[in-house]
């Protein structure tokens, strides 16, 4: 089951993470304007996925562990969603 969890595999993940870092830095230098932040965050989520799946062993963990790893983010999503529901309906700079 964990046979493919080798140092070589982890080294590939590490190189991929450094590649993503280089990409996000280079893209920010280009000045993407409005889509700059969404692109940077998409790359951050890709890095999070690699770290969680390979370094934190979720790829080799049970389905219940996937659930455990997700709960914090579910509550965080509710926190952000409810707060923005307030701000986005206040008018002013938020409703533009």
């Amino acid at each position, binding site marked *: 089951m964990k046979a493919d969890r080798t140092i070589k595999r*982890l080294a590939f993940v590490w190189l991929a993470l450094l590649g993503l870092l280089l990409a996000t830095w280079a893209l920010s230098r280009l000045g993407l304007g409005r889509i700059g932040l969404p692109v940077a965050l998409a790359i951050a989520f890709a890095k999070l996925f690699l770290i969680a799946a390979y370094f934190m*062993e979720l790829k080799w963990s049970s389905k219940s562990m996937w659930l*455990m790893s997700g*709960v914090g983010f579910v509550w965080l999503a509710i926190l952000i969603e409810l707060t923005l529901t307030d701000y986005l309906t206040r008018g002013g700079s938020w409703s533009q």
Partner: protein
Amino acid sequence: MRELSAPLAEQFEDTQQQEAAVHTGIWVFIATEVMFFGGLFLAYIVYRTTYSHAFTEAARHSNVLIGTVNTAILLTSSFTVAAAVLQAKVAKPKSVAMLLAFTSVLGLAFLALKGLEYSQHISDHLLPGGSFQRGKSGPFQMFWWLYFVMTGLHALHVIIGLGIIAWQFAGALGGRAWANENSITATALYWHFVDAIWVFLYPLFYLIQR
């Protein structure tokens, strides 16, 4: 008994169940940490959306070179600590100790660069408070308030992580029962979480619309 193997506590049926309990426990802890940092991320989202112009202007003063190098350092330290877990599972305490030592050196390098960065910002009068740069708007200062609080809280987590890693390093080297594959796995999971938080701090404070 095999070196670095965790003794089976009586409440568990087998070692697999015990290992799953270690992962579950740390993931529950991480969920509380996600909420802990989450409040600050929420503050960032709200203020950045309200004052996006001031935030973009304020972010021009951050040191993107140190930020990028520090990201690479933390990603590398995550790799070395993940490798330490692999070595613990095949009972190689010397390799584990060496990899944990590497991880500590990288963590210390991160903190040294962070300290250098802080001292630059403080001498540039970017630390919120009475000596903050004159003529800057409130939202401009708010960016720096969030910068110092969020990276400071993260640095505190790095310091705590270094303490735990040093403790596990000493245990692995001395062949102590409290440094085993499960405790090293738990240490590594925490360290990866600290790394993952930085992965999000990096674009928010260093990369916005340069």
